[in-house]
């Protein structure tokens, strides 16, 4: 039914949009800090690049989520049932919001690390470790979306 497919695609849109926006914000927060810090220290651009890239993964998870529903579970077809479409919407909401907020927060952790490196502290490893913690919840959300998807897969 068309309405069902419509609902499912709204879920996909939320999933893609919110995770993408989150990552865009996250990498921008770190990127801004990195430009400021790059003026103070040379030779740390590699570190900054890695830290800037970290909040970029949430957008990737959103895309991976869409891809799963499209290609692995094959639910995005006109034959989709109401139950399947609602499950897709739920997965989209969960992954979308977690991705959005965790990416922004992760960006802040990384940005603080970048500032600290800019002031001459060797904080790269510590920042890397601490920045992976907010990431976990996006990973859990992706795993949850996967489990939701496998439950409704055709």
């Amino acid at each position, binding site marked *: 039914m068309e309405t069902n497919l419509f609902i499912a695609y709204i879920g996909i849109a939320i999933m893609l949009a919110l995770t993408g926006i989150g990552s865009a914000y996250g990498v921008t927060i770190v990127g801004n800090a990195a430009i400021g810090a790059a003026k103070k220290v040379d030779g740390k651009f590699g570190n900054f690049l890695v830290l800037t890239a970290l909040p970029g993964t949430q957008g990737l*998870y959103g895309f991976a989520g869409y891809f*799963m529903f499209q290609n*692995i579970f094959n639910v995005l077809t006109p034959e989709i049932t109401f139950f399947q479409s609602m499950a897709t919407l739920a997965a989209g909401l969960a992954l979308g919001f977690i991705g959005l907020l965790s990416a922004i927060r992760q960006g802040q952790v990384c940005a603080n690390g970048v500032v600290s490196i800019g002031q001459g502290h060797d904080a790269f490893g510590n920042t890397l470790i601490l920045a992976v913690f907010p990431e976990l919840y996006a990973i859990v959300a*992706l*795993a949850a979306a996967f489990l939701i998807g496998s439950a409704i897969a055709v």
Partner: protein
Amino acid sequence: MVAKMKKFTFLAYYRDYDAFLHDLRDLGLIHVAASDRQVEDNEQLDEFLVKLKQLREAQKILNRQIDKKSAAPLNEPDIERGKTIPREIELIQNTTASLNQQLQVSIKERELLRPWGNFDPENIERLRKAGYLLDFFIVPDNQYNPEWETTYDAVVVKRETSRTYFVTLTQNEKVADELNLESVKIPGISLTQLDGLIASLREKIQVQDQKLKALAAELPSLKAAIGDIEQRMNYTRVHQSGTSLADDKLMLLQGWAPADNQREISDYLELKAVYFDVADPTPDDEVPIKFKNNKFARLFEPIAELYMLPKYNEIDLTPYFAPFYMVFFGLSLGDVGYGLFLFTAATLAKILQKSKLSTSMKAILSLVQVLGASTMVTGLLTGGFFGFALYDLDWPIVQALKEKAFFDNNRMFMLSLVLGVVQVLFGMCMKVFNRIKQQGFKYSLSTVGWIVLLVSFIVAALLPNALPMFGTVHLIVLIPAALLIYFYNSPDKNPFLNLGIGLWDTYNMATGLLGDVLSYVRLFALGLSGGILASVFNSLAAGMSPDNAIAKPIVYVLIFLIGHAINIFMNTLGAIVHPVRLTFVEFYKNSEFEGGGKKYSPFRK
């Protein structure tokens, strides 16, 4: 394991103090205990710090000069030579700066002179002496008045970018005022000379650059000088750790060394005729920590050091978390192919860079090998190989393996929780041993009660036939456990207080245990999402490559390589960090690990 330490107390006559310290440094086994009254803001140390900063700065500058392609041979290290380098660099930099300034000025003058062409300023001077003044003017084209050519003998030299450059030849000194223009001040040098000057300046700057480049060959000397300063700072610190006694006639110094080296140290010190005394550490002593582990557990020491070193009387948990960490890493990465990649990369690095690797780097590579191998084994549970499902292969051997090893998502989820329960319970057992070691057997009893209680519930839930839940046998086990928990958790206090503490412990245990065990779900989530992303990249590579015999494989390989490179980096990072967290938060907390020991770092050259 924490290595056993001995406390050494030395007494030296103040005149022999320096000689004694040099002997001690040559021995290189004694960790000198810092004295309490050590002043940090010490003049001598400050001086060293300033020098060290200069040398490091110089090192940075010279490192930038090194041309990677044509590496010039480095000179032999010479400390005295190294110390002069910051001054030399400063001189070169000052010269270069002033040369650059001159160059800028000359370039500006040339810009000024260029429209007028090449002439000898001497000729103008000669004209002036003869009473004729040559003035230089620039006006916009539309303001130029051809009448000037008759009134002032104006000659147009050049018309460029709608401006007219002209000179006037008069005997009148007030031409500029009459024309209401400002005459251009011409530098007293010809264009050819100026070009020559600029070229020579550039050459001089080049020479200075070459000098700086040549100085890069002295990097080993610089390094030696830095090492020398660091050593002197170290020496000064140790020197100040001594306490003077008996009207400054005697110096007292305390230090630590591993008990295994006691014999060696005693022999050496007796040879040097030093008065010393050896004692066992008392509980109040701040004993430096040295790990003493077997070959396998030693690999995990860098991970243990990330948190805190154990206190001297505490059990070192490194050998006990090492196997868990290995398995957890494997589960979090969860892909046979990625494991193979890490294992091969570490092995290759070990073989190819054999001579260059430092011992600590070698240990890390060995750790990567172990973790990679563990990933290959645990990866068999889910059967991922660079995102492809290994168990989709129709080979009989693979299918036989699938039968034995394959875990679906539900079982993987359960497995991570079960591992959590096992590690948390194991942590509690470590807590029992830790308390026995530190405080005595009776203080560990309430923890024993908790372990018995928890294990009995688990057994009753899993095997209701063997041990019915709350059956007679179960109650016989439960009641003493409960008594220990509620009335013997702090043996020195009165029973009512014990009951209160017991209830508080129960609350903490109920909320804490649930959170602790659920935290292990991350193992499942990390492994699953890594696998999903890997398979997404594979599908992307297959789906996005165009239908073209040449472009198809190129695009496919590109997407495959980039995708998996990102995925391996992110997942390996996660697989390192999350098991670290499980170790430090869940395991250490349940083991009642306190930590805070200082690392054993002997005084040596």
